[in-house]
């Protein structure tokens, strides 16, 4: 099994004709994702051509795309000024999951979009995230397919390339993944660590979870408590940003130590206090997972 997406996922790409949207749509089709529709306002009626000449119909709006194709998931490659609106439109059209790749969406736009999606019962992943991949089944977003493999490990992370790093190491020692999820580097995200941990706990094929956090906020601390109270499966953790100075934003909008809160030290301690094995370096993750599964 897998979490959030599988071979039944029917995807609509918002911003399918843009540079990033078209490139990654081809990548997703190549991986086997069912891309059933694209949306670009003003380009309705045209079609997108996949790597092997597949034709994906383009619609002006999400309502039509969903009504005519039965899409249940959307992915957003729309520029930041319009991405908040694209999330609202997707949630209104009735998909179950909206994956927002876009980086740089104003935070107050996201406050509104998250509230709206919650009302509609729609899960938002991101924004400012690499998306997710369930190896062998489906990929939604920008994760590189070459580095994953099918297997029993769940991976959840706030980062992009750091996740790839961990996943690649797992794959290289023969530890494949059920699903790899990037939850995003923004301060307001739709799906947090606990949502993913809960899903992995309930997924019979996942046997262990890698959780990669970073400085800023209290998501990791709350997730740590969740693990000790609700999870039977082993979790291995890593936190990036031990050398980050307070008050400075480290690339991700959400990666900032405010005052003395949200430090790597505090998060690593929360992990240790709650029975999560902490990797001191990315290279230690694999060993700790192997130990946990032994």
């Amino acid at each position, binding site marked *: 099994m897998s979490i959030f997406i599988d071979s039944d996922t029917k995807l609509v790409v918002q911003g399918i004709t843009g540079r990033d949207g078209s490139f990654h749509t081809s990548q997703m089709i190549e991986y086997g994702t069912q891309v059933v529709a694209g949306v670009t306002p003003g380009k309705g009626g045209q079609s997108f051509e996949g790597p092997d000449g597949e034709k994906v119909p383009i619609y002006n709006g999400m309502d039509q795309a969903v009504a005519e194709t039965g899409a249940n998931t959307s992915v957003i490659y729309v520029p930041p000024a319009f991405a908040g609106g694209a999330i609202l439109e997707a949630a209104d059209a009735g998909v179950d999951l909206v994956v927002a790749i876009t980086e740089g969406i*104003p935070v107050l736009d996201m406050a509104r979009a998250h509230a709206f999606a919650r009302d509609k019962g729609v899960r938002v992943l991101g924004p400012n995230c690499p998306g997710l991949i369930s190896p062998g089944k489906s990929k939604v977003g920008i994760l590189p397919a*070459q580095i994953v493999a099918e297997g029993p490990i769940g991976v959840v992370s706030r980062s992009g*390339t*750091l996740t790839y*790093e961990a996943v*690649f190491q797992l794959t290289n020692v023969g530890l494949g993944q059920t699903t790899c999820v990037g939850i995003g580097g923004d301060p307001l995200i739709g799906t947090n660590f606990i949502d993913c941990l809960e899903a992995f706990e309930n997924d019979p094929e996942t046997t262990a979870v890698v959780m990669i956090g970073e400085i800023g906020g209290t998501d990791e601390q709350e997730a740590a408590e969740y693990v000790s109270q609700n999870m039977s499966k082993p979790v291995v953790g890593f936190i990036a940003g031990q*050398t980050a100075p307070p008050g400075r934003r480290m690339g991700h909008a959400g990666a900032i130590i405010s005052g003395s809160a949200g430090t790597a030290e505090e998060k690593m301690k929360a992990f240790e206090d709650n029975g999560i094995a902490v990797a001191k*370096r*990315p290279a230690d993750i694999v060993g700790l997972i192997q130990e946990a599964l032994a």
Partner: protein
Amino acid sequence: MDIHEYQAKERFIGAGLPVPPGEVATTADEAEAIASKYGGAVMVKAQVHAGGRGKAGGVKYCKDAAEAREHASNILGMDIKGLTVEKVLVTPAEDIESEAYVGVLVDRSTQSATFMVSPEGGMDIEEVAEKQPEAIRRLAVDPRYGLLPHQAYWLANFLYADKGHVKQATKVVSQLYDAFVDSGASMTEINPLITTPEGDIKAIDAKMSIDDNELFRRPEVAAMRDTSSEPPSEIKAREAGLSYVKLDGNVGCCVNGAGLAMATMDLVKYYGGEPANFLDIGGSSNPDKVVAALEIITSDPNVKAILFNIFGGITRCDDVANGIVEATQRIDIQVPIVIRLTGTNEEKALEILEEAGFSAYTSMDDVVEKAVQLAQD
């Protein structure tokens, strides 16, 4: 992006908040002239992006224009937490009866703009939260409706007992919310919000941080950026579209992705070195970006070695390797460079790099250890 007190007050005035008059001076002469115009006592306040201005001697009461001149001449050029004061705000001194705190920030746990108000103003709100948590009232504003009138009243009621004060404070709270939203802020605060013996309420200090992601649609706010307090390397990085933070170590780091960049810095420390910077070059193999990154890193004289840590995912390693080779041919670099590339097409990438005479690695630990050692030699 932080803006200065005088700029935040401009935003406040635009929203109708009761802010006393004030003008900015860059010389002691100007400060004196502004003070004589107001007549009577004034405050001279350093305009720097640092907390604790008062404790550092950057905020002074002046009984007349002559004293304003004297204090302004001391404060201008003063160093506060490593920042040089280049401007002072001159504003009439107010008679203060009581001090309260009103602030709004984007809160992660409620996922919305959240008010914090306290009758204990004039001190750091984090300190109040720690010592007297009961002295703070919080309210998460539902982003679908904005701040509702009865909510503003509820917050104001926590601050004052007097009916007249509550009425004025209700207005202040809702005007502050307007200023927050209209400025695209991520945080704003009035500390202190004072009452005067005449029964008036005034915002005599102002703080505001703008959400960087809002700047593109608010050119008038973006124009408030003060680059004088930023290291030139950070200004250059921002213009080049790179995410960069200067640090004090000697190992220059050039990494793709923010999380991996942080993890790389941490690993430098793990192996006994100190990172010189955080730098995320993003996902492209464009040599221009690499050139800009190398120029920024090498402009720091502390840097004794440079390490690249690149994970090639969608961007293939061989493309990135070609980008690095081209970039390093375009600029002259005096310190050793070590490179780690892993991911898609890594073997091909290693060949390209070794042919160009670089030490290339596939292990993150090996390259970091090597860079730390080179920086110490």
